[in-house]
C-alpha cells in the first residue's frame, strides 16, 4: 500500500505541478488548491495511466477521498 501512495504522490505532483504535495488516505479535493473539476479529469486519467487500470463510471462518481482511490487500485493490481 505504501508503494501505491508513493506512486500516487508522484502523479499528484506532476498533475498539479507542485512538488510539495503529499497525499494520504484522507486527502480530498478540499486539501489541494487547484483540484477543481477540470483538473480532476486530468488526475483520474493520469492515475489510470500510472497503474494501468481503468476506473468504472460508478467508481469515479463514488470516490470520496484518495484512500478509496488507493483501495480500488490495490484490488485491481
Amino acid at each position, binding site marked *: 500500500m505504501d508503494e501505491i501512495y508513493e506512486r500516487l504522490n508522484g*502523479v499528484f505532483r*506532476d*498533475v*498539479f*505541478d507542485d512538488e510539495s504535495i503529499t497525499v494520504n488516505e484522507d486527502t480530498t479535493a478540499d486539501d489541494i488548491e487547484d483540484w477543481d473539476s*477540470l483538473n480532476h*479529469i*486530468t488526475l*483520474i*486519467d*493520469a492515475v*489510470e*495511466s*500510472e497503474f494501468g487500470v481503468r476506473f468504472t*463510471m460508478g467508481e*469515479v*462518481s463514488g470516490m470520496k477521498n484518495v484512500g478509496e482511490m488507493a483501495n480500488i487500485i490495490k484490488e485491481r493490481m
Partner: protein
Amino acid sequence: MANFYPFDSAEIMKKQRSLKRALLSDGSKRIEKKIAVLGGSTTNGIVDMLELFLLYYGIKAEFYQCEYAQYWQDAMFGAELREFQPDFVFIHTTSRNISAFPEMSMSKEEVDGLLKNQLEHFTVMWDKLREDLSCPVIQNNMEMPYWRLLGNKDCADFHGRVNFVTRLNGGFYDYAAAHSDFYIHDINYLSASLGLEKFSDPLYWNMYKYAVAVPFFPDFAFSLAKIFASLLGKNKKVLALDLDNTLWGGVVGDDGVENLALGQEVPLGQAYCEFQSYIKAQKQLGVLLTVCSKNDRENAIAGLEHPDGVLRPDDFTVIKANWDPKSLNIQQTAKELDLLPESIVFVDDNPAERAIVGDMGIETPPMDGIENYIKTLDKGGYFEVTNFSADDLRRVEMYKQNAERAAAQSSFKDYGEYLDFLEMKAVIEDFSPINLARVTQLTNKSNQFNLTTKRYSPAEMEKVYKSENYIRLCGRLTDKYGDNGIVSVVIGEKQGDVLDIQLWLMSCRVLKREMEFAMLDVLVQKAREQGITKLVGHYYPTPKNSMVKDLYMDFGFTKTEEDGEGNTRWELSIDPYENRTSHIEIN
C-alpha cells in the same frame, strides 16, 4: 525544442502544467493569435492541450470558449465572440451533435430531407461566421457513429447511421472545396487511426460531456495544431535524407550496389521501395529532397541509380555525399537553398547522427525500423497542406533552375553582366483574383526578406484587395532559365498624400536580382499617379529578418524613428525620384 513527435500521450497529459511552464519560459518569440473555440461538447481540456501544442509550434494563443455546447447560438448571435475578434474560429462538433438520424420507416426522400437539414444547420453558421468575422474557420468533420443499427449494412443503406454520417461529411467537403479560408479537421481519420471504440468511449461523454476520450487529447490537439501551424507558415520545406539503411537496406560502399536491399524480390527490399515511393510523392507538394550521407559521392549516385529504386539522382535538389559532419552538410544545404536550417527535416536511421543534427534545433524524427518509416514521417505532419497553389507544384523545378543560375554566375566578369545575361523580365501589377491565393500564401510564409512580418488571412487579404485605400503590388520574375512565379508583395495604405508601407516582402530565391528595386520603381510610379508625395516604411526586427534591416536605407529613405526594440520608421520624398532598376525589363 526539437522532436515533439512522437510523444507519450500519457506523459503529456500528466505533465501538461510543467510542460507549458517550460515552453513559456524558454525565451522564444511567438506569434500571438486569438482563437475562438465553439464546442458542441466540453472543450476546456482540449483547449488546454491545444494551447500547449501551439506553443511548441511557436504560436501563443489567447482563447475564447463558448458556454457549454452553445456553438451554434454563439456563432449566429454571440456578441462576446464578435467583441473578441478572433483570428481563427475552431468549431468542435462531433457526431454527438447530429440532432436527428434516419429512422427505418423513412423513405429515401425523407432521409435526403433530413440530411439537407443537418447540413444547413452547419452551412448557415459557417456563412454567418465568415460574414461577421472574416477569419479562417476550422471545422471538425464527423467521426463514425459509435454503434450501428444495421451492422455491416449500416454503411450502404440510406437508413444507416454510418451512411448518413458519410454523406454529411461529403456535404462538409463540398463546402470546403467551394470556400477559401475554411478547413476541415479530419477527426474521422484521426478516430479511425487511434481506434474509434476508444476514441468515442462513452464514459467520457457521460461523466464529463467530452465527445473525445480524455487520454486522446494530446493526439487530438496535435492533429488540430498542425492546421494552425501550416496556416501560420510553420511548415517544413526540405527532407534531408541519409542513404544507407534509410533509402535502401545495406551500406552501398561496403556491400556494393548489387547487394543492397531494394526492389520487389525480398520483403526488406520491398519495404525500402515503398519508402522511396512515399518520399518521391512528397515532391508533388513542393517539398525539396536533398541527400545528406556519409559516402563517396560516386557510391551515393550508384545507389540512387539502382535499377529497382524509385528515386533517381535528379529527384534531389542538393546532394551532399561526403565525409564531413552531417551538421555541417545540413548548414550548407540550407545555405545553398536560401532557407533556414530549421525548415529542414533530417531523416536518418542512425540515432547518433540524429542527436548531433537535432542539437541544431532541427527536427530529426526517429527512423527506427523500415516498417515504421512512412508512419513516422507521415504522422509528424511536417508538410501539412492547408492551401495549395500552382507555385507549389513548380517549386522543386524552380530551385533546380536556381542551382543552374549559380553555376552560370561564376563565368562572368562582373555581376551586372551576369544579371543582363539572365534576361530578366518582371511583371509588377495590382493583385487579381488569379494571384490572390499565392499572394496570401507567400505573405504568410516569408520570414527573412520581410520588413514587417505582418500576416494576413485570406479574408483579410480579400478586404485589402477590395479597398480603395491601398496601393498593392505583386511581382512576378521570369528569366532565361524559367519562371520564378510571384516572388514579391508590397501593400501600402494611402493616408492623405503619404503612403504607409505595411508589407514589403520578397522570396529569398530572387535575392540580389534587383527585384526589390523594380518593386520600388513601380511603387513610386503608382504612388505619384495617385497624388502621393511621401513613402513611409517600417522595419520590425524578428529573429529571422535581419537581412532587411538596412533595406530602406539602401532605398535612400531617411530614418525618422527608432525605439528600444530596434523598430524603425523611414521616410522617402518621391518628388523627384529616379528609377533604380537597370537589369530588369518591367512590364
